């Protein structure tokens, strides 16, 4: 059970990191449209 939770946490972390990466593209637009 503990191992499953650790693995699920890993999946969630990857999704969060990807969302963070997607925010960088918002910054690109923000800088270029200032």
């Amino acid at each position, binding site marked *: 059970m503990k191992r499953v939770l*650790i*693995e*699920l*946490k*890993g*999946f969630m*972390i*990857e*999704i969060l*990191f*990807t*969302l963070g*990466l*997607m925010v*960088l*593209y*918002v910054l*690109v*637009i*923000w800088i*270029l*449209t200032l």
Partner: protein
Amino acid sequence: MNNQFKGLKIVLYYTGYITLGFSILNLLPVAVALLYSDFSSALDFILTFSISAILAISMMTYGSETRTLKGSINLRYGLTVASLTWVVLTMLAAIPYMLSGHMISYLDACFDVMSGFTTTGVFLLQDLDHISQALNFWRHLLTFVGGQGMVVLALSFFVKEMGSGYKFYVGEGKDIVLVPNVKGTTQWIWKISMVYLAIGTLILWISAMGLGLSPLPAFFHALYVFEAAWSTGGFAPNLQNIMYYHDFGFELIGMVFFIIGSFNFGLHFALIQGKKKEFFKNIEVISFTITSLLGTALAVFALKNAGVYSDGIALYRRVVYNVLSAHTTTGFGSIYARQFALEWGGLGITVMVIAMLIGGSACSTAGGIKGLRVGIIFKGIVSDIKKLVSGENSVKVVKYHHIKDLILDDAVFRSSAAVAILYLVMFAGGVIITTAYGYPLAESAFEVASVSGNVGLSIGIISAQMPTLMKWYYMMAMYLGRLEFISVLALIGLMFKGAKQWLRRY
């Protein structure tokens, strides 16, 4: 084992094994067809199942002596099995396409299957909006299975019969070892994909119902979009592709999963094992972050200045989305094909072509030259320049991080550069053929980069009416691009060797 036709027997035996596993997949669309009381489609898939199973058993019977080898085979046979399997399965999977009445020719059906298997996403299918649910299920199932790899799927079940497993799946461009044994590695690849399938389909299902779709169609839409996103495939159940949903939130969810899908299975595994720092240290993530930021910045700059998209939301939905769809080799399009040609201009198209050629990560579902190779080549060149400038005579060890610290030596640089050069040669060949038929240069480069990098975005050249030679070349480009040349070259080499022996004998 009798030496006569030994190679052929080994190759056919294992190809038969994988084909047998594939034939079982045909039963899934049968279930979908029966759910919709679509007996005509059910029969199409039962027929395909029967033909595939008979062919598989025939191949295995012919090569049955291979069993005495107990899975210990030469690497070239492993590579050949991988490349031959993709050809055989493409021809078999095209049968239900052909029987559906939505294809103009069998070549077109094979083109669509190759596009699905290689996670490209272009298609020649007619009247996509009115195909059966079973055929739509089949299209997306093929792209999902193709993304993980057919050989990888077979190894998850038949590893005892295919003892030299690594030699088989390395031919599918997945030279990865997650855990010390082959079965464990292939099962991890599937486990990661299935967990994401559950998470992604659930989120997209809720989102699709929020858009007004009733639960059952919403489920199938969610499943299809997830399969196409995760496999960086780009298929969608409707002609308008991702624009059909007309929703920024739905597009963003798809975007999360196609970006994750373009990452290396080694990276997924490391993160699942709790190695969070890997995300920030990995050469492929760094390479993807830099090239995608540069690409989006250039495209946003070009299209904002051209006045095509004025506000930030439109720039994100139409420009960033398409550049990332190209870079991850997904192929979801949030604008119509001809808009690229008519609105994006020279710089916009150039960015897209470069992004499509670079592609996603190695050992992922993505295509292209791959971020790992781009990172290695870039680092190798920088190190050579540094050496020249500093005038150092001493040998300096250059390292890069990919799951672990690795040494960037001449052999690593050479193999990366060789694959990159082969990609560029294939790309140049495609551009020459396409322009020879009278298509404009920029549009030809866009379309050829799309098929070479297994992307699937189109600028409007690919259609059932395009010349037959172009269909053949694009199919070959998808196939070579996905299998990364080596295994296909092994197949060609073995065929020539076999033909030479046969001619000498008679």
